[in-house]
């Protein structure tokens, strides 16, 4: 009950603060429209925002001045999050600043009007692409290499069970976790990317054909897609993976290939819907009618007239689909039926390291291992989503 009284007390205090803020503003600015027309809700919002900001600052102050291991450990995560947030923001700002002066005239113009979130997204995507391509060069050890030292703790400090050779420690059979994290970029991202491409090839082809030709082909494919989409995708993927597992037997690589195919087919239904909708919007244009009346063939219509006008929505959809596929694969791996060991993969790593989360109070580094792998997944999807959000915003802004 006590907690409810506290909450109500805080709300009332914020309300009073908001009212005072508005009143003071009105007096100080001699009733400028900004304060004069401010509703109480908005004033309350300002007070709430200020309170949250204050809480973050005081907690961070407590975190940096924390005394004793227990206190430090308690604030470890909060402090890390804040510090990384600031670091990433600065990096994104610098990244945007550099590309405002470097590159072609087109990209320079692009970066000039870019929000910070989008440049952050592009930066992260580039970093991931780099790590994925050069994983073999960057990683200190091989992804399947097994060392004698098992369960080395992260941090690299021998005094508390670490080893400078393995900055993030090793897992229960002695594989270097840093290397597996880096190789994970190659495997997880690479497989997701290939799957998305396949889904686009399938869905895009059928979608544009259905939009252009219409008639029975459109009906047949659209109705089949309706049925496939009536089964939730993760559930359907799990069902098909059960069957695929029976077919693949003990061949782990074959199972991964099956997984790519299964997810590509399930996801291509969503691509089909979008490609068909975009195609239909373009097909009704007069220039398509003009091309038809000229006597142009199907190939010319699709590749020369429709496709060039569909690139913007398709590109945005590619980003969103990639995120979706990436998360689906990560979830399957986390559930133990996705990418198969010995390939290093983030979803599997989270599952294997998950229980370390309970050590947060006395060894925060260890507890951050599963969060690191899961965060690696989240960071990339956040980055892609930021970029897509900006692209969609831009294209909708141009239309108006």
């Amino acid at each position: 009950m006590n907690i409810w009284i506290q909450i109500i007390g805080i709300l009332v205090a914020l309300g009073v603060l908001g009212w005072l803020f508005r009143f003071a503003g009105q007096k100080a600015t001699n009733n400028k429209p900004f304060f004069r027309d401010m509703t109480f809700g908005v004033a309350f919002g300002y007070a709430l925002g200020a309170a949250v900001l204050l809480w973050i600052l005081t907690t961070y102050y407590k975190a940096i001045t924390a005394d004793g291991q227990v206190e430090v450990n308690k604030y470890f995560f909060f402090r890390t999050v804040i510090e990384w947030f600031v670091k990433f923001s600065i990096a994104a700002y610098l990244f945007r600043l550099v590309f405002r002066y470097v590159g072609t005239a087109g990209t320079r113009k692009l970066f000039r009007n870019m929000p910070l979130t989008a440049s952050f997204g592009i930066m992260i995507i580039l970093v991931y692409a780099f790590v994925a391509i050069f994983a073999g060069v960057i990683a200190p050890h091989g992804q399947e290499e097994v060392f004698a030292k098992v369960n080395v703790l992260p941090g690299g400090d021998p005094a508390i069970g670490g080893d400078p050779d393995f900055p993030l420690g090793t897992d229960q059979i002695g594989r270097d976790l840093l290397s597996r994290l880096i190789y994970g970029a190659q495997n997880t991202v690479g497989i997701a990317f290939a799957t998305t491409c396949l889904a686009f090839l399938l869905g895009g082809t059928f979608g544009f054909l259905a939009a252009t030709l219409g008639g029975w082909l459109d009906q047949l494919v659209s109705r089949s897609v309706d049925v496939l989409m009536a089964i939730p995708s993760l559930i359907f993927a799990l069902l098909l993976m059960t069957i695929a597992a029976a077919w693949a037997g003990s061949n782990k690589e074959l199972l991964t290939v099956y997984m790519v195919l299964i997810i590509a087919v399930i996801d291509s239904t969503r691509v089909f819907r979008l490609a068909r909708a975009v195609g239909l919007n373009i097909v009704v244009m007069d220039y398509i009618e003009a091309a038809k009346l000229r006597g142009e063939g199907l190939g010319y219509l699709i590749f020369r007239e429709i496709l060039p006008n569909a690139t913007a929505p398709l590109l945005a959809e590619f980003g969103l689909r990639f995120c979706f596929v990436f998360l689906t694969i990560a979830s399957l791996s986390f559930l133990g039926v996705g990418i198969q060991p010995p390939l290093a993969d983030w979803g599997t790593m989270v599952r294997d390291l998950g229980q370390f989360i309970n050590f947060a109070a006395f060894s925060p580094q260890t507890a951050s291992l599963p969060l690191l792998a899961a965060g690696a997944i989240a960071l990339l999807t956040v980055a892609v989503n930021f970029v897509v959000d900006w692209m969609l915003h831009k294209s909708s802004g141009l239309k108006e």
Partner: protein
Amino acid sequence: MSADDPLLSVKGLKIEGRSDETWNPIINGASFDLQKGEVMGLIGESGAGKSTMGLAAMGFTRDGCRISAGTVMFDGVDLVTASAADKRALLGSRIAYVAQSAAASFNPAHRLIDQHTEGPTQHNVMSRAESEADGIELYRKLRLPNPEEIGFRYPHQVSGGQLQRAMTAMAMACRPELIIFDEPTTALDVTTQIEVLASIREIVEEYNTAAIYITHDLAVVAQMSDKIKVMLKGDEVEEADTRTMLSDPKEEYTKSLWAVRSFQRPSKPAVHTSATPVISVQNVSAAYGKVPVLHDVSFDIHEGRTVAVVGESGSGKSTAARCITGLLPPTQGHIEFDGQMMPLDYRKRDRMQLRQAQMIYQMADTALNPRKTIGELIGRPVQFYMGLTGNEKRRRVEHLLEEIELEPTQYINRLPSELSGGQKQRIGIARALAAEPKFIICDEVTSALDQLVAEGILRLLAKLQDELNLSYMFITHDLATVKSIADEVVVMKDGRVIEQGPKDDMFTPPHHPYTDLLLSSVPEMDPDWLTNLLNERGVDNIGDAAVDKM
């Protein structure tokens, strides 16, 4: 405020719009006064900032716009600096608004009468019951059918012209002193428009309401307003009372606007009846699915002649064009080209047959692929039909650009988005010419363009016809365009040909009653035109009411 102070006084009004992260001017300083009961026509081409100005007169700006300077004094209150609450008290009760699209501006979820009574009850002018009775009275005055009953319908159950009058009634609900009419008849057919115009004028006069009437149609504004203000790209051009403005415009731009209607191509002599027509439409009927849209339509188009097909929306004029091109194969009848039967479906026609009949579209924006350069757009038919490539193709494209009066080197590598509306329409013409056709269908090619630009397109089409001996099928709803370019006229209504013949016969009496109604409904520049027409015919013999009697 003394008795002779203006009701509304706008001074040095500047409005800016936000695009590409900067504020760009939309209105560069406008000033005017409006007395009680005075109607001002605000006229200009698209992009002149008329609507923005109309809303600003209510102290309102759309999202992404702001008033950067100036004052809007309404009865002693500056609407630019007034608080939101003060403005709300004025809006709807003393200043009202009538939007262009009544269908979109009525809330689909509420009955008309509920939306009508909302203003008076919320502003505490009348009780709900009083306001309801008053609404029915207003509906009756605006000559809406079934005034007692129509208010209890939902917007989608009422036709466009009726909705526009219901919206005028709603604006009148609190008996405001000022109403802003934002192009209230632009989306309507001419026969519907005239009824709405007559009712708006009557009710504004009856209640001595001041009004700002925004439109791009000079003839309409001539009927409605006491004075006219002309705008061009956010600048004031001139302002004068209606009669002076019409008879004696001062500025060059205004004069050019007035002069547009003078273009008239000389009619060509009638063709020998024995000559083979280029296109002969014979007893064609067509249907969309099971809904019949064309009934036994026949007409001929001869070499070097222009046949104008006239009708209101839904008359089947565009469907006739779709039948000729083969996009909608007729259910009955056939189409002959140069005396030879054409396959009905375009997919069965050979390249030669497709080449001979070309089409120019209403919306140049959707008729040109936005991702292709001008050179590619015009070059494709050159290559596709003539087999020209490389330098030969380029020379041909350059020649075509010269034909449509665009400098080849300057335009050949541009994208359609880098051209103005009129230039885009010219590219559409060049693309049709590239096929070297004998016959071109022009589907409302000038109706999306401003009058000056449209005039240029008409002149170009006439010149090309003389040079290349082309035949045109000219689909339009605008009788002024028909007068200026046609040799023969086909009048259509509800999928049937009502009347056809040489232009001069069609424009001299006696007419078929429908043609007569159509001709008489087109507003003229004479400010007394509407008054005279109403005196001559009576309010019940104009517009849709007259159509219904036929």
